[in-house]
């Protein structure tokens, strides 16, 4: 327990000092990692703890971003109401998706959420009157108070840190344990008297809520949203981050988000072929390391302990 506290202290220190040592552009990459870490965690809540791998979180995330930017530009509303509405919209969308998808599991769940996410993409692309079609919605610029990279980083950190704590509490609560029970054996949980569909519904709702927070942050960060924000690539990238970090490890999401975003930035400096690299990364991870970075480290440590103990 002491060691865990030490780790948290070190991580907090690093995160606080980081923008003071990094140049401006890299601070914005760090901000991006924090935001996508939340998206990846929200996916992990479903994939790692409820055993339902979703491919619709890009759509939920993007819906929040669309609502925030629509509210602040076209409707002329304030930023805080916009964020609240964005998160609300994302949660509502997640509720609809959940009602349709929780009866399925495994590959069916994946396919259904994929198809549902694509509807959102299709609507964003074609409902030009509201979403601006392919042009998307451009914001009016970040609000004055968070205009520079470093301030925005601290604001993001100020949101992401409590959200992370909240999610950590969520998955380790009795509710989270029930979810894990459902993941491992649905029939057992049902015969123990648990309301399995209700638990899955609430887990999906929570997951959508957190993805919405990430999306709202992204809207302010990027100040622009287009159909590419809600498209399948986004859901896939989010899932890949969760998997790269380690499904079911929650905090691995930040490791995965960091790895993928840094890879994207490095690759983009040399070639415009990021989708090919993303695809190959996915293939390689699926074949060689499906348990992810944090998952692999845990496995190795468990093995070492087993070797040294007898």
């Amino acid at each position, binding site marked *: 327990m002491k060691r865990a506290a030490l780790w948290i202290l070190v991580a907090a220190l690093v995160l606080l000092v980081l923008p003071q040592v990094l140049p401006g552009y890299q601070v914005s990459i760090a901000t991006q990692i924090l935001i996508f870490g939340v998206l990846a965690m929200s996916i992990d809540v479903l994939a790692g703890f409820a055993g339902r791998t979703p491919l619709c979180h890009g759509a939920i995330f993007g819906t929040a971003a669309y609502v925030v930017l629509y509210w602040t530009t076209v409707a002329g509303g304030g930023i805080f109401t916009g964020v609240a509405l964005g998160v609300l919209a994302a949660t509502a969308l997640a509720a609809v998706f959940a009602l349709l998808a929780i009866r399925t599991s495994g590959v069916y769940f994946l396919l259904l959420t994929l*198809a549902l996410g694509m509807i959102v993409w299709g609507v964003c692309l074609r409902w030009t009157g509201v979403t601006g079609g392919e042009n998307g919605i451009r914001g009016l610029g970040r609000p004055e108070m968070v205009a520079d990279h470093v301030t925005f980083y601290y604001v993001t950190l100020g949101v992401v840190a409590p959200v992370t704590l909240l999610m950590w509490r969520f998955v380790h609560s009795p509710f989270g344990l029930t979810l894990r029970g459902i993941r491992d054996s649905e029939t057992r949980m049902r015969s123990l008297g648990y309301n399995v569909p209700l638990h899955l519904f609430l887990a999906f709702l929570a997951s959508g809520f957190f993805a919405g927070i990430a999306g709202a942050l992204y809207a302010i960060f990027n100040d622009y949203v287009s159909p590419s924000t809600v498209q399948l690539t986004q859901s896939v990238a989010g899932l890949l981050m969760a998997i790269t970090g380690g499904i079911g490890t929650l905090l691995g999401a930040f490791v995965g988000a960091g790895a993928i975003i840094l890879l994207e930035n490095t690759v983009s400096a040399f070639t415009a072929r990021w989708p*090919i690299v*993303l695809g190959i990364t996915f*293939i390689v991870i699926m*074949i060689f390391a499906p348990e992810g970075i944090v998952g692999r480290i845990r496995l190795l440590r468990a093995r070492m302990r087993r070797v040294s103990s007898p």
Partner: protein
Amino acid sequence: MSLFSLLNGLTFAALLFIVASGFTLIFGLLRIVNLAHGALYLFGGLVGYSAAAATGSFLAGIAAGMGAAALLGVALDRGLLRFVRGFELRQVLLTLGVAFVLNDLALVIWGGDTLTVPMPEALQGAMEIGPVFYPKYRLFVLGLGIFVFAGLWFLLHRTRLGALIRAGVDDPETIEAMGVDIRRVFLGTFMLGAALAGLGGVIGGAFLTLYPSADSEILVFSLAVVIIGGRGSLVGAGVGALLVGLLNSFGQVLFPELAYFAIFGPMALLLAFRPLGLFGKAA
């Protein structure tokens, strides 16, 4: 609704059936969800486009498109999927990675322009059906869809190969013990499914054109067809394709901006009552 929309819906359904039947064949018989199916459609279509443009023959284009898709299918099955056999989710996600690579590769080779596969002269122009003039080519697509349905039904239910495939699904071990190389049968099925995607690409590329996001669009339509029809069911794919094709056609006329809802609304509703689709059976 007008006869024109009805015919549009039917012809689109025929194309959807050709593509989705390949998807459902691989999904149902091999238990592999191939999310690269849309990419095979696009790739096959583009190879067919190049071949047809180079030789001036539509048939050569079809052959090239189907061949290319089948070869890619073999490479995918033998080269990559063999490492993750038995892990359903890893398989799906791997094919998703392949889809990204293929899509971007197509962008590198053919560029981002919209391309149209040149159609043969005999199928150009329109013909009179009752009160409307309708493009001949689309009617040809409708006929081809019916032909593919009949051909696949015959293959699965009236030939020895079809019997082997169906038996292999139920009990691969017994079939192997009887001296049949079931892996080859499955590989053949995978090739056939992939080739159908390629065929769809060439056929569809002549009237719907080919562009960088065509692969994910056709994939979503195929998913809808298979989700509605049920896994691995040929009849299900047929009924699903008809439903999706007609809903799409009428949806575009009635509320053009929200046509997607017209398809996926009923799909979602159906799933609430039949999670495995109309003709799906529990595995």
